[in-house]
């Protein structure tokens, strides 16, 4: 076994941290307080090459391996980039663009990928519905073939980038009588008649990412917008789960590194009872637990990336374990990070309450902890 990042990966990580600290983090608080998406930073990420890091250079991508892509996400978190922007990046690059790249036609790739990779256009993925969360197969949105078109009816909810997306990758039933086998995947462009996005939802955290409902009301899309084959949508959705269990978790790992540095710096400067609070064992315990969580979680995410790079089918047990551990076990250290800062931790200025609110999504989004436990227990 070998757990070392190569020199290029180590250098690249530093580069991403430097970029993010200069170009993104100075404006996070401003955008967070206004619940607004930072278009400027997003486009800069595209220009820097982050949005298409793992795509082939022929589409404007970086041609990087999955591990390097994960490290970039970790670096964003480590630089202090908020969960909202990294979530938007994940939904755009992995849940939307990657599915088009993996299962779309050449024409889809040529038409959509370059602008998604550069950040000129923004993508989202529409899977969850008001009555179909974890139980994806019970989705009600339909896509019925009508000559050279499909007609979509229904709605989606909790769609990251929904209100700002230029295109949506939508999962709908082409055969409503079937369960998983009846689901297909479509590209729906922003101005398509019958397609609209709801107002941004007010959320506890991830506030710089825009989340909304998507509505389809006799929305006619060309038949060539079908991605891959009819009836294969569930499988494609499950393949994106591999990204949910790796790339989307990586910024949280980096976020914990960032929090440890912040807490450590604060604890050394904050005096109570005539000494820095870093001298108190209660503070040390919290810092130690944060560090232990970080080191335990990091390898889980790297392992999934490494498996993908080897061309191995991701082991569902390992992927679910990573998601469950990081989702459930991250809550205590993020809470500890806030507690170390005391009253200041509860205030926006120090960033710890934002970290706490952002991380609260971890056991919910991308497959709840309960679903992970269900997967794991079936595989035991």
């Amino acid at each position, binding site marked *: 076994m070998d757990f070392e990042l190569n020199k290029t990966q180590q250098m690249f990580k530093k580069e991403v941290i430097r970029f993010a600290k200069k170009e993104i983090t100075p404006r996070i608080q401003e955008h967070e307080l206004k619940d607004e998406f930072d278009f400027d930073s997003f486009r800069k990420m595209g220009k820097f090459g982050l949005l298409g890091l793992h795509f082939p250079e022929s589409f404007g991508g970086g041609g990087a391996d999955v591990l390097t892509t994960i490290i970039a996400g970790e670096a964003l978190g480590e630089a202090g980039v908020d969960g909202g922007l990294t979530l938007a990046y994940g939904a755009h690059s992995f849940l939307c663009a990657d599915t088009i790249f993996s299962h779309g036609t050449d024409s889809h790739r040529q038409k959509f990928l370059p602008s998604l990779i550069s950040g000129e256009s923004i993508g989202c993925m529409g899977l969850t519905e008001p009555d179909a969360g974890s139980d994806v197969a019970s989705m009600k949105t339909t896509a019925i073939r009508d000559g050279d078109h499909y007609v979509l009816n229904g709605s989606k909810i909790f769609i990251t980038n929904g209100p700002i997306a230029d295109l949506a990758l939508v999962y709908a039933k082409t055969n409503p009588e079937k369960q998983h086998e009846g689901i297909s995947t479509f590209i729906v462009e922003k101005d398509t008649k019958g397609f609209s996005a709801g107002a941004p939802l007010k959320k506890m955290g991830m506030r710089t990412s825009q989340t909304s409902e998507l509505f389809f009301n006799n929305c006619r899309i060309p038949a060539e917008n079908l991605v891959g084959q009819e009836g294969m949508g569930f499988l494609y959705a499950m393949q994106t789960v591999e990204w949910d269990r790796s790339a989307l978790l990586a910024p949280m790992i980096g976020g914990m590194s960032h929090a440890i540095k912040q807490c450590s710096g604060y604890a050394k400067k904050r005096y109570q009872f005539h000494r820095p609070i870093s001298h108190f*064992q209660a503070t040390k315990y919290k810092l*130690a637990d944060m560090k232990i969580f970080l*080191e*335990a979680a990091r*390898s889980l995410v*790297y392992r999934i990336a490494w498996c993908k790079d080897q061309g191995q089918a991701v082991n569902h047990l390992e992927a679910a374990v990573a998601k*469950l*551990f990081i989702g459930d076990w991250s809550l205590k250290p993020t809470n500890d990070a806030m507690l170390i800062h005391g009253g200041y931790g509860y205030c926006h200025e120090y960033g710890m309450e934002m970290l706490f609110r952002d991380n609260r999504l971890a056991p919910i989004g991308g497959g709840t902890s309960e679903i992970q436990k269900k997967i794991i*227990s079936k595989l035991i």
Partner: protein
Amino acid sequence: MNFKFSDNEKILFQEMESVLTQEKQIFVHDALHTEKEIASALITIKQKIISLGYMHAFSKASPIGSVAALEMMRIFAKHQPSLFLGFEYGFRIFNEMRQWLTEPQIQSLHIDDSPTCAIAFCEDVVETDTKPSLLTVQSNGDHFLLSGEKRFVINAGIAKYFAVNGEIDNKSAIFFIPLQSEGLEIHPLMNKRIFPGLAIANIQFCNCMVSKSMVFFPQHINSLISHLQFFENIVCIACALGMMDQCIEITTGFAKTHQSENKPLIAHQAVAFSLAEAVTLRQTAELLAYRAAWMFDSGDSEKNILNQCAKVFCSEAAETIASQCMNILGGQVFIDNHIVEQILCNSKFIQLIGISTHLARIAIADVVLK
């Protein structure tokens, strides 16, 4: 990066598993009551696993990488945690001390299949720091006379020597005391609820004569203790992983075969989810442990802090898993010294030995705060 074991390493694990399975009869707890029975089991095991390169693990000359070595230790611990701990303290931990103390008398100690030396550093209660020793030492010609007590000595009555720490003129000293020395009394094995096949006893010195040629003054006693704790932590980590394996294996088997409300226990969501949490903790612990072991080979600057992180996480995960498994197994765990109940108690013990999880957290935080 590479997250897989090589084919050769996998073959080695199979051989280790096979050797230990063949010796199943000596792993029965009931057969490990006396020092003699335990010593005999340790000798048998050593003879069986020596050819697999187990003894050289974690040494620079070892052809087996540290991650694979850790996995072999885990297999041993899964089969018999008590013997594993006795074995590791008797051979590996002492060997680390021996390499540290370069004096010819130590190097020439006769090494055979039974544990050479038991380390007796603990006084009063299980100590986690290096307080001044309460042992009294008087010079008497070519000898020192020792009086006092050491507690919780692993392999007491089995090893041929005791390595005892003390102080002479405010200087730290280590006394090597032969088992049959006059004035040395070994108390009966502790009747304890942890590691039932591990020989732990208190030892008493009453004007015990120790030849001055067998007393050594290590220059950096704290460094020696840290070095030993590092390896004790590795032993604890492997032990925790092995015990987690055993807990999950036993409990999963039970949950699949035992019926409740006309269906297997595992078909009940609460049971299935509890097992899922246990598996999650084990996999996470395993990867953290592997990475910590890998750092030993790579000489990474974070090897000490990762060793401590892994010690804390693995030993506490073992406790959590044992506790969850007890809930699934129900009342049977309180009958006949059930292995899962023992593992719950054992996991508390391995949280204390080596560097305690309390002190490890403080040490981890000190590095983070630098």
